[in-house]
């Protein structure tokens, strides 16, 4: 298991070298979106309309932060459970997005899309919202402010810690890790 530091936007060269279990410190611009925002983004893609940000090489963070305290760019901001985005993620990857940050299992279609379009599913530590929120140095709502915590935000991260769960080679850390430690009677 290797350790990397990467800056967005990611390229296929970046993502292809990563393997399930690797740890990565992410830097640069990331976009936030949960289910409601994904639905709208995928609708725009299907209609061929312009998105509120450039998907090419982008990383999407599945998060609905707490309100910021005065003077902070954002509140606590840990990952939400990713399966709710399963039906949208393959479309996002197909149209240039290279990474997702969340927690929990993805379906086979998402894993296949990671292989087909050089995408990575990163896991961040769920429930570590205070720690992860501090790695975000700026945040700006760029679309759907009416969705509140679910609005699309453009955020800047500094050494944001993630682990590779699904890589471009079809590996799955959840499956591999569990097989390694499972005790069968």
């Amino acid at each position, binding site marked *: 298991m290797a350790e990397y530091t990467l800056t967005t936007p990611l390229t296929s060269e970046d993502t292809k070298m990563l393997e399930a279990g690797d740890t990565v410190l992410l830097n640069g611009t990331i976009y936030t979106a949960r289910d409601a925002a994904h639905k709208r983004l995928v609708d725009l893609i299907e209609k061929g309309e312009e998105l509120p940000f450039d998907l090419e090489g982008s990383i999407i963070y599945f998060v609905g932060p707490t309100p910021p305290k005065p003077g902070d760019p954002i509140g606590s901001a*840990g990952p939400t*459970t990713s399966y709710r985005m399963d039906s949208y993620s393959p479309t996002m990857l197909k149209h240039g997005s290279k990474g997702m940050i969340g927690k929990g*299992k993805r379906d086979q279609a998402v894993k296949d899309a990671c292989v087909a379009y050089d995408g990575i599913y990163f896991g961040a530590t769920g*429930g570590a*919202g205070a720690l992860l929120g501090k790695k975000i140095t700026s945040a700006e709502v760029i679309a759907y402010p009416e969705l509140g915590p679910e609005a699309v935000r453009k955020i800047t991260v500094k050494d944001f810690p993630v682990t590779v769960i699904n890589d471009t080679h079809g590996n799955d850390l*959840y499956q591999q*890790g569990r097989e390694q430690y499972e005790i069968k009677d």
Partner: protein
Amino acid sequence: MREIEFDVVVKAVRDMIVHCGTDLPQDTYDALEEAMENEKSPVSKEVIRQILENANIAKDEKRPLCQDTGLAVFFVNVGEEVRIKGGLLRDAINKGTEQGYTDAYLRASTCEPFSRLNLKDTVGYNLPAIIHFDIVAGDKIDIEYAAKGGGSENVSRARVFPPAAGKEGIINYVKEVISDAGGNPCPPITIGVGIGGTFEKACISSKHALFRDLGSVNEDPEMDEMEKDILTEVNKLGIGAMGMGGTETALAVHIESNPCHIASLPVSVNVQCHSSRHTHITI
């Protein structure tokens, strides 16, 4: 009849919420430290280290432990010889909830089930609270509070077994629920198991079981043994912290058992994430 001012209850509830939002209870912190020590997987060990570092940052800087600051869940035991002066007890709890969630910059997470519209501007900020009342002897009000996140609630399940299923059936069921959940409920988890009663009684018991302090012992020796048996079985699954593979999937199993109908064996499994934010106050 003893009287308690409405605003006293509001402030007590508000203070519990503000405290729990940023300060992980000591019993949870201790259980996580022990899990970090015991964890065999280096990946999961690092995850638990991050969880503890997060707890330290949250406490020192008064930041919410997690962005999912939960629905506010209360178990309230009201003495028969006490009344609230100046309003209704339910209203006081809801008002304290709104104040606590607002004052501590916690997230408003209640919404309408189908339109998914957030209720913060209509019903109130993170309202309504989920409140379970009971009437007891005495002139005090005891309020237990927990912030219940969505990820762990989403994997919870209930089922009514035929009585022949017995303890073995229950143990296998809990194992199945936790196995299917994998890393989604943010392990290391606490597992609340409600047994017996009726369908809804089992569910409420499984919720209340999660309010018990981690590391505490079940007063019923038979249930204590069953808790340990389930914990051993669940930790064989290899799920580990955040599902990344490991030996410390669950911190504890808490059972609440009730008498039930001769025809039924209801069982409910309610899962709590590692950020077990719970406390209580007696007024």
